[in-house]
C-alpha cells in the first residue's frame, strides 16, 4: 500500500516537471513572435521582390511537389520518428495560409511557430531568423498576392503517439534556435560582403546542409562569427556537402569569386559540377540570383578562411604514366576502364560537361561519402536556363566490386596533385548496403 503510494508520489514528482513542460509549451508557442506587425502597401515591385526572395529561400524545394500546384506542400520528409508532410503555403483560406496575418507569417518564418505550435526544424527557421523586416514583408506580399491559391489539403504527420507530441519542439526551439534579429554587421563593413553574409546565413540557409550538427540536431555554428565549423561540411543523407570555406582540403580555396558565382548560376565551373541535392538547389534557387547577389555570396564565402591545406599544384605525372602505358598504380587501370573516357586520363574532365577530378574540391573532401554515392548511383548535371543540356554519369554499382570502387576513388583522390585520404573497401560496402535499403534517399 505504502509502497504503491510512494511510487505514485514518486512518479508524480518526476512527472510534474515534465507535465509542467508539456502544459507550458502551448503557451510558450502562442506567445512567440511579434504580436502584430503593421501591414505595408502591396505593389507589384514588392510582390516581385518577394518572389525573388522565395527563390533564394528555396521555399519550393520543400513546399512544391512536381505536378502539384506551386507551394501546395505535401513533400514527405522522413524523420527518425516517422514522417511529416510539408504544409500548403498558398494563400488558400482553408487549406493554405490565406488567413495568416503578417505577424503569423513572420512567426512561422523567423520564430518557427505556426498555428500555435513549434515547427520541426526541418523548416529552417533558425536560418531564416535573421531575415530583415522589409524582406519578410516582401515574402508575405508574394505568398498572399503572387501565388495562386490551391485547395490542396495538408497531410497529417505519420508519427505515432507518443512520439507525435510536439512540446519537445518548443523546448528545442527555445534552446537551440537563435533569437530572431538582424545579423551582425560584417567586420570589414564591405556592403558586398554584408549582402553575401545576409544571404548565406539567412534565407540561403546554406548551413542547414553544409554545417555539421550536434547530438540535438542543432548546427554547430549558425554564423561565421561562431567559429570555423560554420559551413565546414556535413553529411546529408547519401552525400557529404563539402566545406564552403577556403583553406583545408576539399575546400573552395582554389575557386575565385567569379567561379563560385558561375557555379551558383549554372551548376558548374571549370573544375566542378553540382551533384546530389545541390543540383535542385541550383535549378530551383541559386540560378535565379542576380549577378551581384551571386558575387556577394561568393565574396562572403571567400572571407571564411582557415589555415592549412597547403597550395595545390597540378601534377602531370599521373597522366604521363598513363600515356606511357603504365597503369600499375592501384586503381589506375580501373580508372582507365571506367572513368577516363569522360573525366580524362589527365583528370581535367570537360568544363560544363564532365567534371574535373584534378583540383575539384568535392574529390578532396575529408569525407568521401559523396564520391562513393556518385559511383554507385550515378549522377545527372543540373538544368538551368543557361545550361539546358544535361549530362549523365551512369551507375557503376553493377560493374565494380567494393574494393574496385575503393581503389579507383583512392586513385582519384591521390592523383594529379590531389592530396586526400584513400577510401576503404568497408566504406564502400557500407554505403552500398545503405543505398540498397528501400527507404534510402539518393538523388537519382
Amino acid at each position: 500500500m505504502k509502497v504503491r503510494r510512494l511510487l505514485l508520489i514518486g512518479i508524480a514528482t518526476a512527472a510534474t516537471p515534465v507535465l509542467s513542460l508539456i502544459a507550458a509549451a502551448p503557451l510558450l508557442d502562442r506567445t512567440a513572435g511579434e504580436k502584430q506587425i503593421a501591414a505595408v502597401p502591396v505593389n507589384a515591385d514588392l510582390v516581385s521582390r518577394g518572389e525573388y526572395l522565395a527563390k533564394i529561400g528555396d521555399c519550393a524545394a520543400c513546399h512544391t511537389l512536381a505536378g502539384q500546384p506551386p507551394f501546395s506542400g505535401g513533400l514527405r520528409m522522413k524523420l527518425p520518428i516517422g514522417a511529416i508532410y510539408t504544409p500548403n503555403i498558398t494563400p488558400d483560406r482553408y487549406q493554405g495560409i490565406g488567413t495568416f496575418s503578417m505577424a503569423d507569417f513572420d512567426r512561422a518564418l523567423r520564430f518557427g511557430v505556426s498555428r500555435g505550435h513549434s515547427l520541426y526544424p526541418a523548416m529552417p527557421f533558425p536560418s531564416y531568423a535573421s531575415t530583415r523586416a522589409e524582406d519578410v514583408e516582401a515574402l508575405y506580399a508574394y505568398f498572399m498576392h503572387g501565388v495562386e491559391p490551391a485547395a490542396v489539403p495538408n497531410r497529417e504527420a505519420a508519427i505515432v503517439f507518443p512520439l507525435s507530441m510536439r512540446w519537445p519542439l518548443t523546448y528545442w526551439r527555445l534552446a537551440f534556435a537563435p533569437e530572431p534579429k538582424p545579423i551582425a554587421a560584417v567586420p570589414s563593413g564591405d556592403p558586398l560582403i554584408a549582402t553575401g553574409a545576409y544571404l548565406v546565413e539567412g534565407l540561403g540557409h546554406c548551413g542547414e546542409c553544409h554545417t555539421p550538427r550536434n547530438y540535438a540536431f542543432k548546427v554547430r555554428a549558425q554564423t561565421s562569427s561562431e567559429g570555423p565549423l560554420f559551413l565546414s561540411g556535413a553529411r546529408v543523407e547519401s552525400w557529404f556537402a563539402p566545406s564552403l570555406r577556403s583553406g583545408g582540403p576539399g575546400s573552395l580555396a582554389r575557386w575565385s569569386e567569379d567561379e563560385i558565382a558561375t557555379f551558383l548560376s549554372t551548376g558548374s565551373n571549370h573544375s566542378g559540377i553540382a551533384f546530389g541535392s545541390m543540383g535542385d538547389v541550383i535549378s530551383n534557387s541559386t540560378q535565379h540570383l542576380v549577378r551581384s547577389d551571386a558575387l556577394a555570396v561568393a565574396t562572403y564565402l571567400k572571407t571564411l578562411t582557415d589555415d592549412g591545406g597547403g597550395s595545390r599544384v597540378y601534377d602531370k605525372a599521373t597522366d604521363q604514366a598513363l600515356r606511357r602505358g603504365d597503369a600499375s598504380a592501384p586503381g589506375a587501370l580501373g580508372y582507365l576502364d571506367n572513368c577516363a573516357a569522360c573525366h580524362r586520363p589527365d583528370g581535367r574532365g570537360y568544363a560544363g560537361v564532365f567534371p574535373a577530378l584534378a583540383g575539384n574540391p568535392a574529390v578532396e573532401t575529408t569525407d568521401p561519402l559523396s564520391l562513393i554515392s556518385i559511383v554507385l548511383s550515378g549522377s545527372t548535371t543540373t538544368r538551368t536556363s543557361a545550361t539546358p543540356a544535361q549530362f549523365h554519369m551512369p551507375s557503376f554499382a553493377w560493374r565494380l566490386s567494393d574494393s574496385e570502387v575503393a581503389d579507383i576513388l583512392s586513385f582519384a583522390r591521390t592523383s594529379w596533385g590531389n592530396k586526400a585520404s584513400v577510401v576503404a573497401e568497408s566504406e564502400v560496402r557500407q554505403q552500398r548496403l545503405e543505398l540498397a535499403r528501400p527507404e534510402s534517399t539518393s538523388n537519382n
Partner: protein
Amino acid sequence: MIDTLTRRSFLAGAAAAAATLTAACAGSSSDGSARINRAYDPAYFTADEWAFIVAAVDRLIPASEEGPGGIQSGVAEFIDRQMESPYGYGAFAYMSGPFLTDLPPSLGYQLRYTPREMYRSGIAAADAAAHRSYSARFSDLAIDRQDEFLRSLETGAITLEGPPAEAFFEQLLRNTKEGYFADPMYGGNRHMGAWKMIGFPGARADFTDWMDQQGRHYPYGPVSVNGSKDR
C-alpha cells in the same frame, strides 16, 4: 561436357575435349580465384546437333599457338544462346512470304529459314550428307575429312536435302565469328581471348591519350562490358 559425349565421339572429338580441358585450366582468372569452365548444357541444340556444332566450330576456329580456338572461347555456347534469343527466332529479319529462291544472290537472303530452323535442318542434312559420303556423321570424321567437308559446304559442292549448303555454311561461319569476337557476356570470347589475340581493346572506348600519339603501340589489354569479371 565429357559425360554427354559417347565414347566414340569422345575419341573422335578428342581435340575438342582436350581444348575444353585446357580451357578449364586456363579458366583461372588472374586474381587467383579458381574459375572452372563449367560444363555447358545446350538449351536449343540436341545432343547430336551439339556434337556437330562443337566439331564444326573447332575446325572453323581451331586452337593454335596464336590464340584460343572457338571451342575454348565458348563459341558453341554463344551459338546455342543466340538460338534462344529473338535473333534465333528470326525477329531481326523480314520473314513474310512468298519466298522466291531462284533469284540472283545479289538480291539477298530469300530463304524461309530462321537461324534456329537453318541449324535444325542444316545440321541434320549435313550429317546425312556426311553419312552418304563418308559413312559417318560429321563429328565422327577425322579432322582433315571434316575440313574437306566444310569446304564443300562452303562452295556448294555438296547438295543438302534441306537448306542450300552455302547458306547453311554461311550461317554457321558468321555466327562462329560473331561468337569469337563478341563481348564475353554473350557466352563466347571467354576471357576476351580473341580480343587479346588481335589487340582489340574491347569496351574501353576511350583513346583520349592516343589522339596525339598516333602510330605508337597501344599498351593496354582489353576490357569487356562487364569489366574485371571477364579478365
